[in-house]
């Protein structure tokens, strides 16, 4: 079985102090650490587990600048067999439809059985690329997978719905599945592990290789004409409590007692 995984390099923002660029069109990324999109990490892990259980190969693809190659190196260290980097300055500013189109070009002609990717990326939060790619390739798909099993007509996927409910759906292969966080416990990747795969080749695909013209990709082809970012006012309407540990905990205790109806 050949499994293709799409993974994205994103800035880690959890505890970072973010700053919007002067023109408002993006984030200052210089001080931000890049890493694999959390959902895609679950997808890579799931692909490797499926391969280990059923045989085959795992190819990981990413689209991004030079630095995005780290995501592929990391996936190789986790156990992926092949890696492909869609890298061209012309790709900057591509909307999800263009990203899906580029990935479709990159894998057309490959004899794949399953494509996995994360439900969404933590940076752009679009949750579009996977399904758009499936639609372009004309294959069956399912989003929000919390369990993937081989069986039935091909795959049986548990989809996470709302309010403690899931649905079980059957898909024939080839298929595309977007992976929800928590589907597995991704393995740890050490610096040593990444060093070990230093010798592996990463295939590079540029605009020319994918047979598209510059005006068909990137910002010129985007549905967005203007993008402006801003930071919400920290704290909103919350009353912020500061002070020594004793003061803060004393104040919080009083609030919990009063609001919780404790004596």
């Amino acid at each position, binding site marked *: 079985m050949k499994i293709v995984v799409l993974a994205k390099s994103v800035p880690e*923002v959890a505890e970072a102090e*973010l700053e*919007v660029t002067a023109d408002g069109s993006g*984030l200052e990324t210089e001080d931000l650490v890049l890493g694999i999109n959390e959902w895609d990490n679950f997808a890579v892990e799931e692909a490797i587990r499926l391969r280990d259980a059923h045989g085959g190969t795992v190819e990981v693809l990413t689209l991004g600048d030079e630095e995005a190659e780290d995501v592929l190196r990391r996936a190789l260290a986790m156990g992926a067999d092949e890696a492909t980097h869609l890298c061209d300055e012309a790709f900057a500013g591509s909307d*999800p439809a263009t990203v899906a189109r580029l990935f479709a070009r990159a894998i057309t002609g490959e004899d794949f059985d399953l494509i996995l990717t994360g*439900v969404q990326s*933590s940076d*752009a*939060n*679009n*949750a*579009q690329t996977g*399904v*758009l790619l*499936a639609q*372009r390739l004309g294959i*069956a*798909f*399912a*989003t929000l997978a919390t369990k993937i099993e081989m069986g*039935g*007509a091909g795959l049986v996927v548990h*989809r*996470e*719905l*709302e*309010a*403690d*409910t*899931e*649905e*079980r759906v*059957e*898909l024939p292969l080839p298929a595309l599945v977007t992976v929800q*966080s*928590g589907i597995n416990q991704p393995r740890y990747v050490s610096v040593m592990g990444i060093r070990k795969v230093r010798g592996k080749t990463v295939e590079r695909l540029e605009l020319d290789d994918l047979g598209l013209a510059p005006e068909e990709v990137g910002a010129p082809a985007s*549905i*967005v*004409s*203007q*993008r402006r*970012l801003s*930071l*919400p006012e*920290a*704290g*909103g*309407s*919350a*009353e*912020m409590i*500061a002070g020594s*540990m*004793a003061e*803060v905990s004393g104040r*919080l205790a009083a609030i*919990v007692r009063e*609001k*919780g109806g*404790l004596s």
Partner: protein
Amino acid sequence: MSGLMVIAEHRQGKLRACTKEVVGAALSLENDVVVAVLAAEPAKIAGELIGSAPSLLLMAHPSLADYNPEAYLPVLADLVASRAPRLVLLPHTSQGMDLAPALAGRLDLPLVTDCTGVEFGERITLSRQVYSGKVVERLVLEPAPSVVLTLQPGAFAEAAGGMETEVIETPVSQIEPKCARRLLEYIRAASEDVDISAAEILVAVGRGIGKSENVAMAQELAAAIGGTVACSRPVADAGWLPKSRQVGTSGKTVRPKVYIALGISGAFQHLAGMKGADTIIAVNKDPAAPIFQVADFGVVGDCLELLPALKRALAG
């Protein structure tokens, strides 16, 4: 091209409340709003929308009983292509996230997901949350005859009732003879010993709790005040607490008297599950964490340092 079209969402024979929010959002933009209800017996599902939407399109077919993108797509593609609404609106739910990109891809229409604001002018302008909810994005779109949008649940007010509703039964012509994807069954998570939605005080832990062993500190605090421990998604994902303790759209919706959020950043899926709490106390290292946007009281700091002190203060 005119008017707005809402795709109603239902599951197991019931309209989902998020549909009313999407109708509300549409009506705040313009009055020409139709709601497409695709179902085996759409009249039964659409009952709740009578009075809160100007126009309902009932599209009945046995293959539309349960959501399946392959059954829905040809029907919707036909409908959208023939009516050419300016906006096609869906909720950003497990169904909307599955269906909207497929519909937009099939018809080659622009799609913007998880919108928290929609403005109509010469161009369509959308607000969304990006970078884990820490940044607000405003997008002005290139002109297009029709645009598909998914709207964040909880971000828009439900439509007010009391309006005249026109009900139009619309024949379903385009049906996929055989879907490759097949729904096998719905699964309800097994109920656990503790029902967090019944608790009056919840001590909820997030990624900031650091590691599995630290959950015990939250349990001790909860025990001291007769509260119950709950969690956000990353904690359940990591297996530190069972899924039954997860607060949020995919888990449980809670409305306790007091909700203490420890090390929870506040993804919208989490906020949607707890913002109805009477009093929200949030403790987080990151002053820009979205949880502070819904909190009544906030502390910027490490919950691991605060937990023992708070337990002492409350036990005393």
